[in-house]
């Protein structure tokens, strides 16, 4: 029963995926081929993408009961509101 309950995704594939995204991040950040605003958006997008991979597969959120996922997602809208509010106020 436990083996069936614990789904193990291909961790090595996720690791390679994360390594490739990190390499892409460095390329985008250091080669400066994007305009400043697009650079920031691209880097944030890649960071969130990597963070999602860690949360979904390494922290097994993809395989948790929906009730737990909904409960622990509660602070995320608050975090987004805080960041967007200060960005709107201060970003030039």
């Amino acid at each position, binding site marked *: 029963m436990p083996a069936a309950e614990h789904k193990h995704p291909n961790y090595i594939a996720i690791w390679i995926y994360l390594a490739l995204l*990190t390499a892409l991040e*460095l390329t985008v950040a250091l080669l400066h081929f994007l305009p400043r605003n697009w650079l920031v958006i691209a*880097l944030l997008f890649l960071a969130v993408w*990597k*963070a999602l991979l*860690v949360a979904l597969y390494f922290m097994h959120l993809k395989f948790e009961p929906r009730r737990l996922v909904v409960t*622990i997602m509660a602070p995320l809208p608050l975090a987004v509101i805080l960041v967007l509010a200060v960005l709107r106020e201060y970003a030039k």
Partner: protein
Amino acid sequence: MAHAAAPPDAAPAVATHESPAGTLGVYTQKLGMWVFLTSEVMFFTALIGSYIILRWGSATEWPDPTKTLAIGITALNTFILICSSVSMVKAYAAAVHDDQSGLKRWLLTTVVAGATFVGIQFVEYRNLLHEGFTPSSGLFGSTFYAMTGFHGFHVTCGVIAMAYVTLRAFRGKYAGGKYEGIETIGLYWHFVDLVWIILFTIVYLI
């Protein structure tokens, strides 16, 4: 003797071990760790929010982090932390399958990788301080040391906790498929990795 006897509460009439009623379908330690981690989300969001205010509200020109900071060695450190997350999930998988030698090997790998991260961060700090970049060197200095310092503190706590878990693993405390302790510390470890992924982008690359 070879296999641990079924715990008394695992009677067939009871729902599975992992879905007791009233705990969101997970065991208590895991739920407790997740609740703690959600509060940690707000802790780091507060730091990031302050960083945005100080950086974009700053009257003076903000230094280019990719020129001030050592990106190469920090990128390597990022990769080391990602590797330690992989060894952590490998340890968890080994614990679930009661592979004791695999569990000890992967836990040790995780402790060594985590300690390496802290060591490299220490060297990075030493070099930056030597170059005159200190917490008192303006807003960039203070926000840089506050954000990476709090994260480094979390990694250090994780390494200490992980060393304790590894010691317990060597004493056979997780034998018989008792994976809960490994999964719970693993959640903390992956969260610290996740926060670094965000901080590395915000502090070092943007």
